[in-house]
């Protein structure tokens, strides 16, 4: 079926957006004290790394990073058929009393973030949890919103947002694909 694919962010634009998000995260967290960046597998992890690099260049502080795989906390495991592959969760830091910033590539239904919040609660009790996403595409099914958004785009149901990062996909790029016979 025909699909129209457009580039939402190219490499340069993505870099600028990430830099702006990093500033906004630090601003909202009142500095880097107690700030922990937690990327959601998979592309949230790379984005968290990028954000940390920008924060380091601005503030000369290495912000602790972690990664979260939410597969085992999904609410649709009973219905998805073949089991999704489980990725790595690494949270070597105490998160009690910290400001945890969850980082993900695309915010859509909000179910991933719901699972991430549940999983974080099993590691401790942060003073505050924020959410930073590169793309907010709308379509929420749960009362969840992002504190820091790279780009807000309204994508219809059948559309697909693909975030590519150099480390995994060989290029930094965000594309939007809309199938012609989308609902």
């Amino acid at each position, binding site marked *: 079926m025909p699909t129209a694919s457009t580039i939402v962010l190219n490499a340069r634009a993505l870099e600028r957006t990430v830099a702006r998000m990093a500033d906004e995260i630090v601003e909202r967290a009142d500095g880097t004290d107690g700030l922990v960046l937690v990327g959601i597998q998979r592309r949230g992890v790379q984005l968290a790394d990028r954000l940390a690099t920008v924060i380091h260049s601005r503030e000369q502080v290495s912000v602790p990073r972690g990664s979260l795989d939410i597969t*085992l*906390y999904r609410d649709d*495991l009973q219905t998805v*058929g*073949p*089991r999704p*592959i489980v*990725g790595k*969760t690494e949270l070597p830091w105490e998160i009690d009393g910290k400001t945890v910033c969850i980082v993900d590539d695309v915010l859509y239904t909000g179910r991933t973030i719901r699972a991430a919040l549940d999983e974080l609660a099993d*590691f401790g009790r942060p003073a505050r949890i924020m959410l930073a996403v590169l793309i907010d595409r709308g379509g929420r099914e749960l009362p969840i919103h992002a504190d820091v958004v790279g780009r807000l785009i309204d994508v219809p149901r059948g559309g697909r947002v693909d975030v590519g990062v150099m480390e995994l996909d060989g290029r930094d790029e965000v594309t939007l694909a809309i199938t012609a016979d989308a609902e």
Partner: protein
Amino acid sequence: MTAPLGKDLLGLEYLSAEQITMILDTAEPLREISERAIKKVPTLRGATVVNLFFEASTRTRISFEFAEKRMSADTVNVATASSSVSKGETLVDTAKNLEAMRIDMVVIRHASSGAARFLAERIESNVINAGDGTHEHPTQGLLDLLTLRQRFGTLAGKRICICGDVLHSRVARSNIWGLTKLGAEVAVCGPRSLLPNAIEDFGVQVFERIEQAIEWADALNVLRLQLERMTAGYIPSLREYNRVFGVTRERLDRAPRDLLILHPGPMNRGVEIDSEVADGPHSVILDQVTNGVAVRMAVLYLLAGNTPALADAAKGGDR
């Protein structure tokens, strides 16, 4: 998405290399859950697992129970001594009664080879073989594979020798299937009386002397010598067994390379393995125990909710 594993886990013989690798890859990240402050994920919330143990077991049963609880399943342990089995109820009747109480999975340990399959073909619930007679003990095989893979990076081309009572060992069979499927070279070593007749048909080498095995291997999986074998006439005496086949530090010191030492437990220190070796720097025996929980969590995760229909789909990829 993962390749479907089917409804049951009955033995490594029935899995493809791809399916085995998938279980190991799933187990790897699950190890971290046991390191958390709250050692629990909600994955199997609402699922009921029955641990049906017709044979004594401490390690395997506890390991399964930890795995089930850490995945948030509800668990019930049925030990034969205190159940209706002692009143003469058959295996299938016991399981059907349990199923009538709406269970989802059965973990079975039984003294008869084939008991797990027998049960799996007769009930809807997922069945996990926790050791059936001298047939297979797949989760033990998987945890051995995981432990070896962590140390070696890959199993391809690695040489693993299984030492001791191979004849009565379901662990040996699961190991041989799993290791050969993942490309390792496998040998066995033990007194002829404790090796199966046609063991060469498994495609394994046979060493009559432990020194030869130590010279050849990258890792030894030392099996437990079941002490009742002595009274049954398989070996002359425990002392002699230790003298001829015991894995001792003196013997390992003469090896051309450092060998990894595995043992499925429980150990007879001073019989098949010396304490110095069991507690030594190359022993991965406690890693095996840690990995056991992760591997069982992985199997529970991958099997849960798999219906017979999915199982049929998986059968296409078998063998």
